[in-house]
């Protein structure tokens, strides 16, 4: 069923996928804060050391983010599929939570110094 070209392409794609995954993971460090953007605009930056619940209002809807024990997760969203809640908890730089319908993106930031590297 498979041909030689399939195998070559498959190996290249696997190497690319796992290679970038490993690279991102090796560059990732524990975060200090979480940045909330709606439609590309920064809405706020919240310290990870403080447990809190943040309501995120956007033109398209509403999301609720929770910071608990240094981890961030989306706990409520009014979008139809709720994909953003499936991202689980994030705490490392290079990790994101995305709500496409509401155009909400949560990203973890390191210290200021690390920020300029990872951007």
């Amino acid at each position, binding site marked *: 069923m498979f041909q030689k070209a399939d195998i070559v392409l498959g190996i290249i794609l696997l190497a690319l*996928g*796992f290679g*970038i995954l490993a690279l*991102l993971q090796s560059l990732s460090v524990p975060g200090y804060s979480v940045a909330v953007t709606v*439609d590309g605009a920064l809405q706020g930056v919240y310290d990870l050391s403080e447990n809190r619940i943040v309501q995120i209002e956007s033109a398209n809807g509403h999301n609720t983010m929770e910071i608990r024990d240094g981890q961030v997760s989306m706990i409520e969203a009014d979008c139809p599929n709720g*994909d953003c809640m499936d991202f689980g908890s994030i705490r490392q730089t290079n990790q994101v939570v995305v709500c*496409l319908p509401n155009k909400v*993106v949560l990203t973890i930031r390191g210290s200021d110094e690390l920020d300029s590297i990872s951007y």
Partner: protein
Amino acid sequence: MSNKIPVAAILASLALIFSYVEFLFPLSLGIPGIKPGLANIVIVVALYRLGARTALMVNLTRILLAAALFGSVFSGLYSLAGGLVSFAVMAALRKTDLFSTAGVSMAGGVFHNLAQLTVAALIVESAQILYYFPLLLLAGMAAGVLNGVLATWILRALRDVG
């Protein structure tokens, strides 16, 4: 030539049903936003049985009807970006005659996801979501191989029927 039209219409309906089933029963395998994309089994079968031009019409019909019936402008946009880019890649790879059906479908799955991620990054205006690139690449690959193997079996069965 003209007998392609009823077959194309049936395939478009079938692809639409697959899209609808996935809409009704979203299968999240721990990676948010991932779908097996079963409608692409039909698109691959159309590509090999009816040729690129007709298969493109089948694909466009499915995407537009799915967006109109149970999607939105945004879901239609994502679907169109993924559908067109993956289709272009599959039609080009098929022409080279180097790849099997499953290999063509594998490449289609990967490029489908990459196109959608690119559109998503533009829409939410965040380059950060490109961190998601490797996972989507691997997931697209797995879904593409699965759909490609199924399409190969179907094409074989169709050949036996004539």
